């Protein structure tokens, strides 16, 4: 127990949560629109990290500018993936899409392994270690981590705006809530699925690009992040991006506190997230909103939340 470290650890967790949330939006968006869990998520995060590295080593592009290229690139890649491959298995049993996207992940992982070898890489720039010192509170905050957090926050705001104010965003929400009805009112569901898939992949890639700036990575580092993303979207209840951000915050806090405050070994940090994943699925399969929903006294009138998945629930009872 180390109570003096609560404040820095908490701030570290909040900064990390921004990144965790960013990596989870894509998974939730794709699940919402297509009802498939994108196992290739892990591969996309990892490949985007390597793309960022490649842009830096080959073109001397500063990593913080990399998202400007990575995001559109992966948006196109995602749309292509959807049109050429994923669309063919839309509506099939879960195992089909799981295995197909798993296969794509394996291919991506192997691609990275062949091109960049299995060694752990990291991008080091002069500003990587620069930080803000707050003497009074004995705090050190890395500039880059702060920047990544702000990027995550901006992504959330942009997503909320996009999904609530633009035609495309509304069409995505409509498709998420009820595919058939959306089709009835004239939404081109096929095209929306493709675009949403592209955006989902682009979001995962953005997260990968941001990760590459602050953490070392190797071809296998996506798996851990994918499991964490999944835990986050389940905790967040799959109902809103704000919920996902809250889920990310909870997971990051659980991880950082268990190591920084409770004194767990650093090597067991992932154990905390994976246990959280399993426990949440077992105990709280509908996420936090379901728990909050069970306490009527707390409940105000339902806020207008952007729902990425409608009422699908892990234990069945979702839309037929």
């Amino acid at each position, binding site marked *: 127990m180390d109570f003096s470290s609560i404040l820095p650890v908490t701030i570290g967790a909040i900064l990390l949560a921004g990144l965790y949330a960013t990596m989870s939006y894509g998974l939730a968006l794709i699940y919402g629109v297509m009802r498939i869990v994108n196992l290739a998520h892990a591969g996309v995060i990892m490949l985007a990290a390597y793309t960022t590295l490649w842009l830096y080593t080959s073109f001397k592009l500063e990593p913080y500018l990399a998202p400007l290229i990575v995001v559109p690139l992966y948006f196109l890649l995602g749309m292509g993936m959807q049109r050429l491959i994923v669309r063919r298995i839309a509506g099939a049993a879960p195992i089909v899409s799981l*295995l197909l996207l798993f296969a794509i992940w*394996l291919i991506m992982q192997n691609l990275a392994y*062949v091109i960049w070898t299995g060694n752990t890489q990291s991008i080091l720039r002069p500003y990587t270690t620069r930080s803000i010192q707050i003497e009074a509170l004995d705090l050190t905050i890395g500039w880059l981590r702060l920047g990544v957090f702000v990027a995550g926050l901006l992504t959330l705001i942009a997503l909320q705006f996009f999904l609530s104010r633009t035609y495309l965003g509304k069409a995505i929400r409509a498709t998420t809530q009820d595919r058939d009805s959306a089709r009835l009112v004239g939404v081109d569901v096929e095209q929306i699925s493709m675009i949403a898939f592209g955006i989902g992949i682009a979001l995962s890639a953005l997260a990968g690009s941001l990760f590459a700036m602050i953490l070392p990575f190797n071809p296998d580092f996506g798996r851990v992040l994918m499991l964490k993303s*999944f835990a986050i979207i389940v905790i967040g209840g799959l109902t809103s991006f704000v919920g996902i951000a809250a889920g990310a915050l909870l997971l990051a806090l659980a991880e950082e506190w268990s190591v920084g405050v409770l004194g767990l070994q650093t090597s067991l940090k992932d154990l905390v997230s994976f246990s959280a994943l*399993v426990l949440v*699925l077992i105990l709280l399969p509908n996420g936090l909103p379901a728990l909050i929903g069970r306490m009527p006294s707390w409940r105000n009138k339902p806020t207008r939340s952007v729902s990425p998945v409608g009422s699908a629930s892990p234990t069945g009872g979702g839309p037929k």
Partner: protein
Amino acid sequence: MTVVTPPAGRAATRSRFKLGREALMSIGGALLVGLVLAIIGLVLPPTNYIVFTLGFLVFLFTAQALAWNLIGGYGGQTSFGHATFFGIGAYATALLQQNAGFPPVIALLVGGVLAALFSQLWGYPLFRLRGFYFAIATIGIGEVTRLIVLNPLRNLTGGASGFTIDAAAGSGKLEQYLTGLGLAIGAFLISYWVRNSKLGLGLFALNMDSEAAETLGVDTTRLKAAALAISAFIVGLTGGIYARAYLYISPESVFAFPVSIAMVLMVVIGGIGTLLGPILGALIYVVIQDYLGAAQLTIGARTLQFRDVQLGLYGLLLALIILFEPAGLVGLFRRMGRRFRRGRGAGGDATAQSAVLNQQSEVE
């Protein structure tokens, strides 16, 4: 992929007329193959690489694939966590034999039983989850187990440095071969029995439509738990046999994610939900690994070892199979067979292969 094939329909409707003959043929065939292979093993000197090294691996992987198929193929519950059973079987056997002085047979069986018990520990809570959620949760279980074995239990398991078994306590080539063969035959017979039993029928039913099955009085949780326990027991035994044969185990070798992946790959490549598919898958898996193991390809200045690209190749194979031949190699052969026999009337019927991959989802 819109065709919905009634899965166990054949087993149910035609069993009265054909089950007797078919059962005799299958069981007899399996035993005959086993006998021939056993004689080959007894006759040849134990230095024969193809028989005693590759053959042994094929048996081990066959048993694993058949076991995975029970829950993943028949029951449609995609598990990415079967490495836990393999690891538990391996560690339990190694520890009991080495540290507690158990006789090998008892150690192996206890390993299998422990794996089965462990499967119930996570099986029951997780069976409430559907499709994706179950699959992802099993990845989580696999990782949690691996990390626990690696770190908090390192005093017992040797942690990252692994655990070595005295060579004297290990198994000889012939013993490995025969135990592997016995287990593979056993797994086949169990698979055959499950497919034609009430358990199998229930599994096919819940695989097609869980809610409908429940409405008809199928206790889905109990059936899934039973299938998982049998599956875990077999995989646990393969773990023990592996440990006794290779004499060195570590969390990264027996609890690793690729161990789970291998089982999924073999079954899907061979033909998910079929009886022969997993066997074919295991055979091909081992042959590919062995024949291409030393292969290399030089592109420009770089030389690619096969083992560097094998996961990607399996991924490619998996993607192609899912997109073009969801029933795997068995489906491919069956299609070729139908084409070959065309004209002799519709002779070829679908085996009790469940339409796992053809089935429409509940959502769309």
